[in-house]
């Protein structure tokens, strides 16, 4: 396969397309997970329950980013973590530990460029708390080396993703300042959340906000047609009507997705993950404080599923629907190929699955 084609395929895979199973293998479910004693792990399981690796790591991780060609993934530390782990997906071996510089820490997310030569991670500048950075790592001779930084043009960046061109970053700037060693918010009354599009060279292309200033834009899902879906966590009063799911359709402005009041209120102002299924034109959202999992039609806004799922966490697309993990219960497969969505529990370990999953 040519590099260009494989690069394109990689970008498409990360863009809300369901994951191509490699050969006859079931997709590999990658996630951060804890044990009951609070130890942290990077794990990989086939969806049929077969464990591929369970690797203990020192710091709790958040999102997982796979290399487009090489069989490894970066398990990115969540804020204010200072270590991300490069894990071999065949056996779970820790290949490399990325240590952030002393005045930086990770924010939980990153992306690989489709060429496989660059890895970018969102980071905090602790000398100017909250100043958003994308740190760039060069992949050379099997190792990642930190080379330079780009500004995310906003405060407290969280998730970063690619537009379908694979050259334009989408950044969810959460808008919250936090200091090193801390998860305590310093600026709740002066938050500056924003959805930023920027070029790979760092040039700001657009910067948009939602109505309420305390509505932290945190997670992203990008469809193959360039539709951006963003989910929020609201830091203001419980009675405020904050939009928990936002959408930026191609060529349009960033706005609230038409979520009806019962669903919006059920989220308790907190969402964990969002995923989009480009072929089925569905968007899925986990709300662990509301203990609800939702699916809507991206185009019509029609609610397709509003299901109880305690402490639901990561969500990702598979051919016929979505896989969802939970911090409390079993992982689930939602088959969305028919009008009535059906759920099947998966034979995977129960509970303690962290915020995100990646299907590889």
């Amino acid at each position, binding site marked *: 396969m040519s590099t260009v084609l494989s690069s394109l395929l990689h970008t498409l895979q990360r863009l809300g397309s369901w994951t191509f199973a490699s050969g006859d293998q079931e997709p590999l479910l990658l996630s951060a997970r*804890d044990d*009951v004693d609070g130890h942290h792990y990077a794990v990989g399981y086939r969806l049929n329950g077969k464990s591929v690796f369970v690797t203990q790591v020192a710091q709790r991780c*958040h999102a997982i980013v796979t290399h487009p060609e090489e069989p490894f993934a970066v398990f990115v530390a*969540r*804020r204010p973590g200072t270590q991300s782990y490069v894990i071999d997906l065949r056996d779970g071996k820790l290949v490399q530990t990325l240590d952030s510089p002393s005045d930086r820490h990770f924010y*939980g997310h990153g992306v690989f460029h489709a060429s496989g030569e660059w890895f970018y991670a969102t980071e905090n500048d602790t000398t100017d708390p909250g100043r958003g950075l994308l740190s760039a790592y060069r992949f050379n001779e099997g190792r990642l080396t930190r080379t330079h930084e780009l500004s995310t043009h906003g405060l407290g960046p*969280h998730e970063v993703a690619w537009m379908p061109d694979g050259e334009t970053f989408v950044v969810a700037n959460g808008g919250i300042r936090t200091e090193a060693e801390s998860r305590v918010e310093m600026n709740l009354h002066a938050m500056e959340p924003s959805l930023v599009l920027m070029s790979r060279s760092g040039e700001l292309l657009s910067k948009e906000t939602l109505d309420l200033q305390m509505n932290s834009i*945190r997670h992203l899902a990008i469809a193959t047609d360039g539709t951006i879906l963003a989910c929020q966590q609201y830091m203001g009063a419980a009675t405020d009507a904050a939009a928990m799911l936002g959408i930026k359709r191609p060529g349009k402005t960033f706005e609230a997705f038409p979520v009806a009041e*019962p669903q919006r*209120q*059920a989220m308790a102002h*907190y969402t*964990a993950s969002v995923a989009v299924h480009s072929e089925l034109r569905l968007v899925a959202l986990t709300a*662990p*404080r509301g*203990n*609800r999992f939702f699916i809507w039609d991206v185009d019509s806004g029609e609610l397709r599923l509003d*299901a*109880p799922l*305690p*402490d*639901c*966490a990561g969500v990702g697309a598979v051919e016929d629907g979505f896989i969802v993990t*939970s*911090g*409390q*219960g*079993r992982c*689930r497969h939602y088959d969305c190929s028919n009008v009535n969505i*059906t*759920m099947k*529990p998966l034979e995977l370990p*129960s*509970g*303690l*699955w*962290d*915020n995100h999953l990646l299907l590889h």
Partner: protein
Amino acid sequence: MFRPRLLLTGLALALGACSPQNQQAQTSAALAEQVLLPAYSRWVDADRTLATSAVAFCSGKEDLNKAREAFFNAQKAWAELQPLLIGPLAENNTAWQVQFYPDKKNLVARQVEQLLKSNPQVDKTTLDKASVVVQGLTAYEYILFDSNIELADAEQKVRYCPLLTAISEHQQELAQRILARWKETDGMLAQLSKFPNQRYADAQEAIADLLRVQVTALDSLKKKLAVPLGRQSKGIPQPYQAEAWRSESSLLSIAASLASAQTLWNGVEGKGLRALLPKEQKPLADKIDAAYGDSSKQLAELQQQPLKHWLSDEGGIAKLNAFYDSLNTVHRLHESELAKALGIQLGFNANDGD
């Protein structure tokens, strides 16, 4: 030749019967049948009595004391449901229709008066479409107990009676609808009894959900005490921020919720969460029993006076703080030690996500 094999089969069956999953399924089913469903049924009964009482009071066949008694009964039934708030009543913010608390800005008084101004002859149909603030027991309590309302005055009684009746009818219908959803095919009772189902992948998930709502309720009992105690407002008591302050039934509600949480722990005929602890966890079970015992004892003494009495001097505040500490012990034992002993992780992402 056959004997050892039969013996092994018998042993396997015996082990299977006691497997954790099986025991969890039995406990979940028993709690649903013997604790939760009866509590939801009592709530329906209490709201039926409330509706009858509203009509009787408004037609002059019942005095104010009787009407207030029916309110206390409904309030108590609702308080008992709070540690059992699982399924349909817990979803879509339906519970807000039952009670509007906390009410920091006294919205209940304002919205009741606004509603009666714009709709002097309010009926259930109008109320069904109105704000949750005026649909529930808090608005009902406002009418029956607020010092600015004199129901002995015939004119005032005529003014408030349409809303009083509408609220009682709204509550009655809501309670009946929720109970029907418990009892329907594949309803909540079935989902807590047969696994897997569309809600629970296995019995462990059902037990985890039961523990989760119990822990949430215990935590909110602490908040119901902490707010009037001023623990979140520099120690300055806030008696008007207490739950059910107008009817002085704050402690009654706390007592009903606490007793209900304890029933989930003990179960009926020993078929509660306690029964899921293995023998070696007896010290933990004893600790939880003792914590409930201590809280109940302190509360029994406090219940001899209304909450505002205790809030009025330092000695009373000290007693309330001691009770808060005992509730905290009950809460923490469930949230951490019991959850861990039962292999349940509560709020991993909900409380500490990103």
